[in-house]
């Protein structure tokens, strides 16, 4: 089954995104920690796109789909007016260095990579598709 959700690029819509993902994942026998980890990974990608790709322009929209498949779940986040981002050239920052410099950002993508089993970004003609995969070793309720 595939679940779809469309949202506009405002930070205030992050709560709605989280509620949607949580609602879908409640169909699985997952712990609160497991659900929170996946919700957080999706939230981080969506936050980045809303803030950095769309500068919080609430006229722009992004699509999210959640597809369950044998052994796991795939989150697909489609931005049809994206700025290019090269995930392959991304290097996780040094946490102690961030603290030393007093920075308050830069760990969102690091969290996504730690929380999910597979993260990939496809970019074509201003359309970026983020795919986050997480293995689930339990049956859906």
């Amino acid at each position: 089954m595939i679940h779809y959700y469309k949202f506009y690029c405002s930070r205030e819509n992050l709560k709605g995104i989280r509620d949607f993902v949580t609602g879908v994942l409640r169909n699985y026998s997952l712990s609160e920690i497991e659900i929170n980890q996946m919700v957080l990974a999706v939230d981080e990608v969506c936050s980045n796109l809303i803030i950095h790709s769309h500068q919080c322009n609430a006229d722009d929209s992004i699509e999210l789909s959640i597809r369950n498949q044998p052994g796991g779940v795939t989150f697909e986040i489609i931005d049809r007016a994206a700025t290019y981002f090269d995930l392959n050239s991304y290097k996780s920052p040094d946490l102690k260095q961030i603290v030393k410099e007093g920075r308050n950002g830069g760990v969102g993508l690091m969290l996504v990579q730690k929380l999910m089993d597979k993260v990939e970004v496809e970019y074509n003609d201003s359309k970026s598709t983020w795919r986050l995969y997480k293995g689930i070793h339990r049956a859906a309720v």
Partner: protein
Amino acid sequence: MEISTLHEGQLSILSVNGDLDASSSILLDQAIEQTIAKGKRKLLIDCTKLNYISSAGLGVFMSHLQDFESTQTSLVLFGLSEKVFNVFQVLGLDQLLTIVVSEAEAKMSVNDSLL
């Protein structure tokens, strides 16, 4: 998200209620700044009612740590749910911050650190 602040002498307790994300984290940052501006050097963050934290919320704590060290300000978090504490663990922030279970432990921790 709502933040309430209680001042007890040099000690301040900031209680965070709700979700700390890219939309609301600025409120916590402002509350911490205001508390420090009052000269408070013992800061407790009550996370009992903190339902969710993203990297934006974690970033607020990270951005103040260096200043806190140089101004000898104590920061202690308490009352985290399992799922919220897990986020600190995943990033390794539980090794850089003082996180305890109860308010009583948090008060003991800041008092010990400044004796």
